[in-house]
């Protein structure tokens, strides 16, 4: 980096650009945070005064707490199972050579590009034809469809970085194929599996449309929020939003090092 140049020319316009981008993104979120502490019932300026009433209300609303519990159950399930399938799929894709490998890897990623509404509908019809009732289980299965490809991509990127010579060295030292997978590849893939779990947990936790179509009585948090809003505006939602937002921030903060790789290093 040319420090001299920067000091003279570059810094200020660059920071302004970033600040503008940041403002566009964060103003609405700031709004929610502010109103979550506002004692007024209606979401209009001027503010009435600082209050934690909506947080209290949230904690005392058992329906919200049930929804939160449902969301955590489904998201944990999706996180763990997607990561397991993702690892198996990624390992197969990276290590095996066969025809149509490119086509198959395209097919495995495509679900990420299919509109959620369509997936949700087709799944609803599919489970209906199977005679299943709609529950957290169907939500879990539905969300797997977009999260397995995501986990697969994350883990595949890591597997591609592991030098082939490591596995070869393990074979050379007497480890069979499964043994070297367990002793060498698996431990080295763990960081990317943690990232995969963080990501898929978050995506599942945030997901609306599939959950909306595939559950009946067991609501997840986004559905519960939506239901409350449909019946009339409820500022409790601001409190939940603020909490979820800061949780997301924490997850991203820990996850980004893995996801983005190293930032640019001087020298």
């Amino acid at each position: 980096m040319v420090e001299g140049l920067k000091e003279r020319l570059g810094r200020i316009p660059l920071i302004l650009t970033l600040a503008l981008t940041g403002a566009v993104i964060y103003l609405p979120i700031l709004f929610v945070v502010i109103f979550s502490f506002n004692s007024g019932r209606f979401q209009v300026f001027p503010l009435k005064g600082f209050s934690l009433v909506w947080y209290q209300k949230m904690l005392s609303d058992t329906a919200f707490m049930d929804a939160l519990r449902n969301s955590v159950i489904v998201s944990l399930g999706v996180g763990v199972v997607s990561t397991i399938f993702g690892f198996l799929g990624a390992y197969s894709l990276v290590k095996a050579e066969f025809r149509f490998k490119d086509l198959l890897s395209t097919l495995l990623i495509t679900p990420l590009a299919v509109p959620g509404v369509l997936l949700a509908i087709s799944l609803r019809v599919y489970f209906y034809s199977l005679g299943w009732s709609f529950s957290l289980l169907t939500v879990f299965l539905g969300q797997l469809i977009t999260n397995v490809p995501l986990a697969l991509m994350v883990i595949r990127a890591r597997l591609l970085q592991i030098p082939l010579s490591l596995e070869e060295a393990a074979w050379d030292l007497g480890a069979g194929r499964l043994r070297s997978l367990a002793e060498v590849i698996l431990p080295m893939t763990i960081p990317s599996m943690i990232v995969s779990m963080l990501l898929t947990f978050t995506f599942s936790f945030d997901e609306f449309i599939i959950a909306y179509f595939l559950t009946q009585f067991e609501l997840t948090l986004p559905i519960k929020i939506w239901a409350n809003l449909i019946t009339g505006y409820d500022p409790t939602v601001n409190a939940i939003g603020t909490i979820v937002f800061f949780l997301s921030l924490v997850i991203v903060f820990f996850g980004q090092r893995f996801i983005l790789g190293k930032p640019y290093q001087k020298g």
Partner: protein
Amino acid sequence: MGSNSIVELQDVTKRYGESVVAVDAINLSVRRGEFLTLLGPSGCGKTTTLRMIAGLETVSSGKILINQEDVTYLPPYSRNTSMMFQDYALFPHMSIEDNIAFGLKMRRVPRDERLKKAREMLEFIQLPHIAGRKPNQLSGGQRQRVALVRSLILQPEVLLLDEPLGALDAELRRQMQVELKRNQQQLGITFIYVTHDQEEALSLSDRIVVMNGGRVEQMDTPKMIYEQPRTTFVASFIGRCNLRKGIAEAKEGRLVVFLDAVLGKFPAACFNGVEAIQPGQRIAIALRPEKIRIGREAENCQTKAVGILKYTGFLGSIVRIVVELAPGDEVVVESQALPEAQVGEKISLGWNCDDAIVLTENSGGDK
């Protein structure tokens, strides 16, 4: 092939796809306890050959024997060979002692016993204090030593080394060369060593196999390879070399009268199975830069020539000199002292007929 050979390759060929032949029907017989080097430019098939011996690459046709036993279709974990990889392939998530003990763990040796053995190995390489570290906390030289003992812990009969010093800088490399050679002699293990560095090959090996285009060009001791190369490829790949192409005029015993387009006729010596040359045949000769004398020293030589001094480069212990014999036709000379002439002046050259070595032309010579 003798019964004292520990590894034998019989017509071993490796093809990739339909048309690429990486290794072309080579035959090798490695003697028990020797330090054998496979030397050649990148893409010559040396690494592929090594990997076939390790079992990390399938053999397209031919046979590999280790201790007279056919191992051609044995997987790597069932062969009594060990491999040292160019990047060392230390397991980054394991401590150094766990790395070294890995082979014993695969043989179900109890934890206490295998760690004791690993510590002995660390004593052997004089690094007992690094047992608990991770590979990324080691220097290049330490990694190299750890990779060596990790390969040795299973007491293999043959150690395969794939450019094990390639990642080190020049000074450390020289140190490790001496150390590797010492270890090999102490342990009496057969080393099959792959490198593209001719200096390394010359200083370490008992015998060198010079490979080019998937074939063996010459297999001999370092001294013979350097002083009596058989082909233009070997002559120019091992050390610096002035190559001259011309015609064999006449033949007297071991000497050939060589007709050079610029220098005229002079005698040159045949070695190493190239004696079958006939008068009239197109041949090449090799002149080593350090065998050419210049200035006053040239006066006593059997062959003499005159050229113009083009360039003098001081390299510390030697001086590199470029002499132009005819426009565009240059000869490189290495001397102990600066020439008496200045750049642009005339200078005499000379050499003896045993230093002008007759070579056969071959495809590799055009490199």
